[in-house]
């Protein structure tokens, strides 16, 4: 009798453990970091995300998705790299040797992501949020690597030059020369 009672108790504990709900992950602050960057250009970019899940041999039927994504890409210069010797002043003329412009952020706002079309066969599961996010992460990567095909860094040089020239003219400089370091695509 005692043995049966122990067995029932053990089974109840097991059942309790098995039914235990997943705990929500803990919320925590990761990092606060000082920075000194001057963002001077923003590109708004549209990309179509196309995927077809038809490579698994034992899954039958279509599972396709088409999404449109609008990304905001910001570029600028890192002022932390600017040293005293990068500024040469001679009377009313000034020469500024600025660091090379770089991509500062690639932002995919959730409200600018749209599912345009989905084709799911009767034997297939629809794309859930995790699956869609995995595809969008690939799109983000493609956007980052394709940015060197755009003129964003050249535009950043132009905009930075305009911004600083106006300010320096206001400051009384008559001859202004602004140079940039070697441009290379740097992603944070």
């Amino acid at each position, binding site marked *: 009798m005692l043995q049966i009672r122990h067995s029932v108790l053990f089974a109840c504990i097991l059942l309790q453990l098995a039914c235990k709900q*997943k705990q*929500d*992950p803990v919320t925590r*602050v*990761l*990092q*606060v*970091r*000082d*920075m*000194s*960057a*001057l*963002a*001077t*250009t923003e*590109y*708004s970019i*549209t*990309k179509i*995300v*196309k*995927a*077809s*899940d038809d*490579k*698994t041999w*034992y899954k039958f039927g279509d599972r396709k998705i088409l999404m449109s994504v609008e990304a905001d890409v*910001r570029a600028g210069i890192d*002022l932390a790299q600017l*040293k005293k010797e*990068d*500024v040469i*002043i001679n009377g009313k003329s*000034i020469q500024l040797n600025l660091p090379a412009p770089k991509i500062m*952020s690639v*932002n*995919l706002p*959730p*409200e600018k*992501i*749209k*599912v345009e079309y989905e084709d799911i066969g009767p034997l297939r599961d629809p794309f859930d*949020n995790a*699956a*869609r996010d995995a*595809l*969008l*992460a*690939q799109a*983000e*990567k*493609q956007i980052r690597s*394709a940015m060197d095909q*755009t003129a964003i860094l050249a*535009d950043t040089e132009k905009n930075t030059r305009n911004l600083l020239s106006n300010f*320096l003219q*206001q*400051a*009384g400089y008559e001859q202004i020369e602004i140079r940039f370091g070697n441009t290379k695509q740097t992603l944070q």
Partner: protein
Amino acid sequence: MTRSIFKIIGYAVVIVLAYLLLAKIGWLPSPASWFRPAPVSIDETPLLVNRIRALSELSSLSVQDEVVVTQIKPAGTAKQIISLVTPGAAPALDHLVLVVKGELELGTDLKGLTEQQVFIAGDSIAIHLPAAKVLLAQINPSQTETFIEEGDWTPDEITKLKIKARDQLIERAKQKGLLQKANERSLKIMEDFLRTLGFNKTSVSSQ
């Protein structure tokens, strides 16, 4: 007869062992990989530049934070019926829990700087900067983890929850006084920059 059966079994064992060995080395796919679903890759598509905008934003503080957002709603009809006919069953609910990592950039938008806010005389300069604000709040899909997704959730419902996560990130940064810290940093950066430009007397303040 028995001998030939043993012979066939022997050959089969040798073939299986050889296969397992080659799979272990990596020369043949492992048996587990036969039923592993193939990864879904997106097609290479071109980028379309819609808009180019000139900015003048001085980012002085970067915050990387993480929030958990939850959404619960009544489950679909089938689940409701099952819960109604099951004695003692809890009401059927759909759960969605997202762990969202985000990055904020705080600093000063110099576009708000007017001529009246800059005063220059010789090697002296006084600037009154606009107050620091959130310049960027970024929550990308690559930084979002779907912790629980039970039931049917439309993309619009998920978007609303992600926007809620972004609002929470911004609110937490404000509560921690990071806008004030960003403001102080912006003043320091601007002062250093002006000194580098040759101004000996600088006065930088903010709203």
